[in-house]
């Protein structure tokens, strides 16, 4: 048994959804156990090759070790134990939280600019740009970040692709339903910022569909391509 064999075991366990911290420690322990068995057999008079061979038999093959570990579902990562939470609920909550925070940050910028710095709509300086950047984050980047995080967790935990696809689609749909606008004119010197999440009938057309598709493509296309590439590499002899 060699280090390569344990690396193979590590990859198998990660792909099967065992939590990375368990995998890391299990491999360290099995490696140490193997070394102890070899030392025990060597001291009994066996050659190095015979000792390694018998130690491998006592520990079990990679398939047997994997099966023994998979028999304990509690060792799976939290994302594999509760995929609906990791890939659907949390990304949707993350999107809503990011949107609200970006709107609050925009309000903070406007309040600070007008009340503390005394900036007005006649000489707005960079304020409209900063607010526009925060709005763009909430409306465009937040859905991609939330869906991307779900896909990243899926890739790390080896989850079936169905869950991140479902989560990404829901996040993209909800993301396309967000809206934000900022108006600042001499008529309204404090500025008017509005934002929300909702299905507005006039926006249920082409623009919303394009936003949904854009989010899905931005996140899922690279993920699906990477999964395919990884499978191809794994199938190489």
């Amino acid at each position, binding site marked *: 048994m060699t280090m390569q064999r344990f690396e193979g075991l590590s990859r198998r366990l990660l792909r099967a959804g065992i939590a990375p911290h368990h995998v890391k420690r299990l491999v360290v322990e099995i490696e140490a156990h193997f070394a102890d068995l070899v030392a025990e057999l060597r001291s009994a008079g066996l050659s190095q090759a015979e000792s390694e061979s018998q130690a491998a038999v006592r520990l079990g093959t990679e398939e047997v070790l994997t099966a*023994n570990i998979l028999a304990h579902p509690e060792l799976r990562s939290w994302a594999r134990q509760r995929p609906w939470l990791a890939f659907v609920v949390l990304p949707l909550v993350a999107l809503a939280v990011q949107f609200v925070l970006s709107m609050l940050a925009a309000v903070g910028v406007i309040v600070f600019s007008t009340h503390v710095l005394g900036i007005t709509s006649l000489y707005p300086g960079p304020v409209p740009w900063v607010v526009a950047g925060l709005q763009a984050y909430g409306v465009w980047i937040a859905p991609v970040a939330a869906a991307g995080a779900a896909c990243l967790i899926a890739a790390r935990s080896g989850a079936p692709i169905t869950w991140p696809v479902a989560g990404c689609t829901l996040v993209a749909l909800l993301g396309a339903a967000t809206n934000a606008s900022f108006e600042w004119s001499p008529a309204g010197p404090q500025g008017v910022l509005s934002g929300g999440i909702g299905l507005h009938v006039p926006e249920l057309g082409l623009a919303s569909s394009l936003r949904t598709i854009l989010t899905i493509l931005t996140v899922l296309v690279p993920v699906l391509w990477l999964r395919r590439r990884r499978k191809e590499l794994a199938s190489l002899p």
Partner: protein
Amino acid sequence: MAQNASLMSGVPELLVLRLLSAQEMYGYELARAVRESTRQAISLGEGVLYPALHAMETRGFVKARRRTVSGRTRVYYAITPRGNRRLGELSGEWRRIAGGVRALLEGT
């Protein structure tokens, strides 16, 4: 010696917790201690031991810590108060079963 799987169910957990109640140990040490303290009657599958220990840890019966001894990293396990309660339950259950079997055998 072949061991009946259903008869042995729960025994590895009992043995591991009993041994860890005396002192903390690492996996290889535990596997040897089980063989020696049961006079070779029971031998835990060495590949089975670690997932069982990790599962016991997730249930709060044991806790693990890494220690470097003679330049080698070892993961030592120690029993927790919850593990001690579990040991009490398993020991009681095992004594009850063993007593029943003994009574039956002595009666024949």
